[in-house]
């Protein structure tokens, strides 16, 4: 039992990974081999980076002990900011920089308000969800601006790799995943994030600047969401003000299915990615298996509850172990 608890704390994403493998096998069989063919994989891998980048940000923020519901709105606001600037003649790099700055500013406000007024980030970011969405519509003028023709699509969404298997966005996603994973597991800053989320009084008593750590996580989460939104807009070719709606909850579901604890301190970047992949696989696999696609949300909901119940059970067991010790 002790062994299992330890494995769970060290590799909280393990259960999600096992489930993912099982589902892939199931869908592969049910779809008569269509699921894992190149065309279908290309489809899944083309969309995955967008939800995956958001999930990485949300997972890291959750590990630090906070929560962000505004990611879906930032996902829409960032590319809208860029589109409006480009319509007014700004070159792409400048618009990109401005979009990222707007995202970072929203993350900063989320973090600063949450910490300064000691209110739940659930509330701060719920408010920001509405405000950022509203701003998106307001700056668009209610009408999606036309994107210029000469965008650097080759850098972000063009297909590359053997058999054109990946979009460029996947490489960005992979790079961010590797960097953030290393940050969490190999740097002192990663240690501070886990300590801050794991038990804040201890982290503060040991001199960790917990407020700054959290604000950086809020900003990272917002910037990744904004960047992901830009990838989607480039892929779709139009900055719709409604993109990313409901994304915040799917991102939380991804993190939780991947083993992150809502209480903070536990979770991995890999877990968030596995959670996102699971959701995308279920979405796609249900269709290929000729199951009514309306079961999709049911499956995600069920998985989320199941994951949290499993987490809670593990924590209870952990407590029991401590008593014995």
């Amino acid at each position: 039992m002790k062994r299992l608890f330890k494995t769970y704390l060290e590799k909280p994403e393990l259960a999600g990974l096992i489930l993912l493998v099982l589902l892939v096998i199931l869908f592969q069989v049910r779809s008569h081999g269509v699921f894992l063919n190149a065309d279908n994989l290309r489809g899944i891998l083309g969309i995955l980076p967008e939800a995956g980048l958001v999930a990485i940000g949300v997972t890291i923020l959750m590990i630090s002990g906070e929560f962000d519901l505004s990611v879906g709105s930032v996902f829409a606001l960032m590319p809208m900011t860029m589109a409006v600037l480009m319509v007014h003649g700004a070159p792409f790099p400048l618009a990109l920089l401005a979009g990222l700055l707007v995202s970072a500013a929203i993350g900063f406000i989320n973090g600063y308000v949450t910490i300064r007024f000691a209110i739940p980030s659930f509330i701060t970011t719920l408010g920001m969800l509405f405000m950022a969405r509203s701003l998106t519509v307001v700056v668009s003028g209610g009408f999606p601006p036309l994107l210029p023709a000469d965008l650097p699509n080759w850098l972000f969404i063009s297909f590359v790799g053997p058999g054109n298997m990946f979009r460029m966005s996947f490489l960005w996603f992979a790079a961010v995943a590797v960097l953030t994973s290393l940050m969490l597991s190999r740097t002192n800053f990663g240690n501070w994030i886990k300590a801050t989320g794991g038990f804040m009084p201890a982290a503060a008593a040991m001199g960790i600047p917990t407020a700054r750590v959290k604000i950086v996580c809020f900003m990272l989460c917002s910037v990744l969401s904004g960047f992901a939104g830009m990838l989607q807009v480039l892929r779709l070719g139009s900055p719709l003000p409604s993109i990313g709606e409901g994304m915040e909850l799917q991102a939380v579901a991804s993190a939780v299915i991947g083993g992150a604890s809502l209480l903070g301190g536990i979770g991995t970047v890999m877990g968030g990615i596995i959670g996102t992949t699971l959701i995308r696989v279920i979405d796609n696999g249900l269709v290929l298996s000729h199951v009514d696609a309306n079961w999709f949300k049911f499956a995600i909901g069920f998985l989320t509850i199941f994951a949290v119940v499993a987490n809670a059970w593990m924590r209870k067991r952990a407590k029991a172990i401590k008593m014995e010790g």
Partner: protein
Amino acid sequence: MTEAIISVRDLHKWYSGVHALKGVTLDFRRGEALGLVGDNGAGKSTLINILSGVHRADQGEIKVEGRPVSIETPRDAMDLGIETIYQYNSMVPTMSIARNLFIGREPTRFSILGVGILDQKKMAEESIRAIANVDLHLRSPDALVGELSGGQRQGVAIARAMHFKSKVMILDEPTNHLSVKETNKVIGFVRGLKEQGVTGVFISHNMHHVFECCDRIVAMARGEIVLDKRIGDTSIDEVHGVL
């Protein structure tokens, strides 16, 4: 009389109108185990919180090894060699012993603006040594602190303080909620401090624990020091009498 490692002069603290410390003057002597006792609200936690950088004094002077200092944050206190061990507050249960030992003071292979790559090899080696030095027998520094018993956690906290060469170790109610066996272990740790030349400040409600491991006893009541004697010159009854 040995020299004072920390001397506190006329320290005052008000909490929203409540005068919690009323001009406390006290010398903590090098290598001494000092027991600080008093009822809830007597001011002992306030005094400790000021020395460990959690709160700031409103008035008064603190000198460490003769130099006037200002302790603004927990980090300042640690940098001065003052380490505080709380009953609950000093360990992150979801992290390993090795990670906990180095929280906030991680060795890095290189760093930019204070953020850098952890030197995990050094952390593993030093944590094994640090744990062995306090005679704590743990399977591996990779074990999670959440798996340890209360006494073992206090042992790890003490190992951490020793490893960072703290000069003064403040133990705030370290024996609360511990079994008799675990309590004896912690008391053993406090006794061991003296051999290492570390000043120990032991805060407890339990007079027996204090008398078992301290050289000197300081009792506080209503924000003031009401008794300050060598253990040999006083008794549990006398201390109870002044509280």
